[in-house]
């Protein structure tokens, strides 16, 4: 079951997890905007470091590192493309400035990935669903989202059962070339789809029996309320935006190379 363990969501409580997901999302957008504004190393590095406290307070270092490692390949790719194109367009010469700018571009990508990963690592799906429900998204969509999350582990388990059953009947999943291997999964997919459809019918029945669609204005057991932490984060967002705009307009940001007199 280890392959599917990552699909199960768990409720975790930490000051970061408990923040209002809507405010957290605004924060992600704010980091996003700030990262797009700058293209030199120092402010981008500052943005990168600024999010580390979130990771540690929420105690998601491990998962965070994993997501960063996942992004490393793309980051390296971005760096190389940047270097190569600069090398050719500048007339086959390397300058310290080019390397620095390529690094900054890579860093920008890393900051974007980082902020999104912090958001998704620290927001549980039920919080996210609640945020969707309470931000004027039609309830059908929010419901589809939470139900999907709910049934991912169920379907994963079922896929495992079907795989075992088909293997017991002599199906060899890891045999042949790529095309053959993909084709090997058809006897797993078809029963899985059929059972998912049957499941959805039962689900619909259960929903009907619990007054689905009884009244136009649906209410909600939970209300998202802003707490002290949310106001602090909101203040932080404003500070970041103001500071970023100030530096962007009034301060010419020194390059790292200039420190070394290059």
């Amino acid at each position, binding site marked *: 079951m280890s392959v599917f363990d990552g699909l199960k969501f768990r409720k975790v409580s930490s000051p970061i997890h408990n923040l209002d997901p809507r405010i957290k999302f605004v924060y992600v957008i704010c980091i996003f905007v700030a990262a797009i504004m700058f293209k030199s190393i120092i402010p981008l590095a500052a943005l990168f470091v600024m999010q580390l406290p979130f990771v540690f307070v929420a105690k998601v270092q491990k998962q965070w590192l994993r997501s960063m490692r996942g992004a490393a390949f793309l980051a390296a790719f971005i760096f190389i493309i940047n270097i190569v194109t600069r090398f050719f367009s500048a007339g086959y010469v390397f300058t310290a400035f080019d390397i620095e700018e390529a690094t900054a571009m890579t860093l920008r990508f890393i900051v974007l990935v980082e902020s999104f990963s912090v958001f998704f690592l620290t927001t549980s799906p*039920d919080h996210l669903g609640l945020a969707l429900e309470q931000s004027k998204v039609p309830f059908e969509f929010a419901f589809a989202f*939470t139900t999907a999350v*709910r049934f991912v582990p169920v379907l994963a388990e079922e896929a495992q059962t079907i795989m075992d059953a088909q293997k017991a009947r002599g199906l060899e999943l890891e045999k042949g070339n790529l095309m053959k291997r993909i084709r090997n999964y058809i006897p797993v997919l078809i029963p899985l789809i059929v059972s998912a459809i049957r499941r959805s019918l039962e689900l619909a*029945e259960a929903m*009907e029996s619990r007054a689905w669609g009884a009244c136009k204005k*649906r209410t909600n*057991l939970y209300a998202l309320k802003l707490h002290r932490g949310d106001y602090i984060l909101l203040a932080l967002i404003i500070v970041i935006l103001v500071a970023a705009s100030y530096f962007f307009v009034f301060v010419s940001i020194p390059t790292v190379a200039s420190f070394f007199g290059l």
Partner: protein
Amino acid sequence: MALIEIKNLSYTYPGASNPSIHDVSLKIEKGEFVLITGPSGCGKTTLCRCFNGLVPHFYQGEIKGEVTVSGINVLEKHTYDMAKHVGLVFQNPENQLFALSIEKDVAFGLENLGASREEMRKKVDWTLKQTGIYDIRERSPHEISGGQQQRVAIASVLAMEPDIIVLDEPTSFLDPLSAEKIFEVIYRLNKEQGITVILVEHRLDLTAKYTDHLIVMDKGAIRLEGDPRDILSNEETRLIGVGIPKATLLYQMLKKEGFNLGDKTPLSSDELADQLLEAYGQR
């Protein structure tokens, strides 16, 4: 007037050539604990779906006859109108829970009905306590056992405060111990809250003692109906394929051998033990 009244009901699923239930008439009074049993495919599930209008509204198909529940003509109302009166609990607990926390699942029906938050809070807490799952209310459905999941399913219809709870083989996915717990919860709701219970079950060993109104169905029709003590000692019941409780069987065997255990047919091993002690009780 009876709480549930069905008159000459026949129903055919779309695309089916034979009717699933044929000329069924039935009366259930308020506060009863009704047990419906019979071999697979005898129309028990279809009958359950008639109580809240899933048949015919959800399934379409051809229907004849009358269904009246709490004085409402089910055939003319939507399923969601019936949800306040009839709570339906299905076989597979996994497919009835769709929220990410148990509490939210229990509140689902009330949210749909547009209840206010305070009212919801009160009813949800009460329901969670009634079904003994208050302590796990913040867990997600995949973290709890099948028995607990089924209790959540019961809680989620109970929260809407229905007059009737219909349970369609609620324990077929559960082990005997969890099953017994479910039955106890249902029995308590019936006795203490006065909720009418309609239970579809094969395991009469565990459930026969709770009921005073047994219905045996076969081939889409009601074959026998009435006092479980009479019906379970009837030869016809055994021939239909109903699993007679072991205690009842043993009683019949002993009686045939000439042991006098009194006239009351026992429905559970406890009852039989008492009767044995009373008749031959020198220890």
